């Protein structure tokens, strides 16, 4: 099973650019891009909590488990 990141979907729904999210979360835009593409090893709870707070969503709206 793998985890799919739906951050791009949530950003589109909230009409927010990656750069703005990166600035408000306090991480680099590059890391946001890596997160969107699922090329990160993991995400810290702190980062996930900030993203959910800013995008006004639940972790399940951003992360989805999918069968391989």
């Amino acid at each position: 099973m793998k985890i799919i990141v739906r951050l791009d979907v949530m950003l589109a729904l909230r009409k927010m650019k990656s750069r703005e999210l990166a600035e408000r979360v306090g991480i680099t835009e590059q890391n946001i891009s890596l997160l969107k593409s699922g090329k990160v090893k993991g995400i810290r709870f702190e980062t996930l909590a900030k993203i959910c707070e800013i995008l006004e969503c639940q972790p399940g709206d951003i992360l989805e488990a999918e069968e391989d």
Partner: protein
Amino acid sequence: MKKRTRTQKLAAVLLVLDTIFIGVIVLAAVLALIQALIEPDELLAGIAPEFVFPENTPFLIMVASVGFFAIMIGAILYTLWQMRDLFARYAKGESLTVGCAEAIRKTGIGLIWIVVLDALMMPVQSLLLAWLISPEAASFALDISAASLGLLLAGGLIVLVGWVMREAVDVAEENARFV
């Protein structure tokens, strides 16, 4: 301009000192070699004033002595060069990297070699001299001082620190892949 940390400042100073020290050693080695070539008798008198050398001994002794000297200088310069590499990386602000870990490890290996060569050089040289003059009386005696043992332990410790640093770099890189 970003303010330099105390690590960077100290590393910059040590880098300069190390570089000067390397230059001095290279210069001294070259001068010693020139003197050995110009005045081989002076070299022999310096090595073993009490010996009366048989014919054809000077050239062999000179080659062996210069060889030992070159190997020893090589080990010292190798160690100093690894230290220089490490100081340069720290001065640039690099710390938890593979390059730094490798430089630390190699410095430790260099120190160990210096101790081993230093312990072996005089006995081997004396053995060679004795063998050339009186083969039946030749013997090998190894003398290791407390300071040498201490330096050997220090070298081993530095190699160990280098290995641990390498593992720390792996952990840091793993951590960097978390957002």
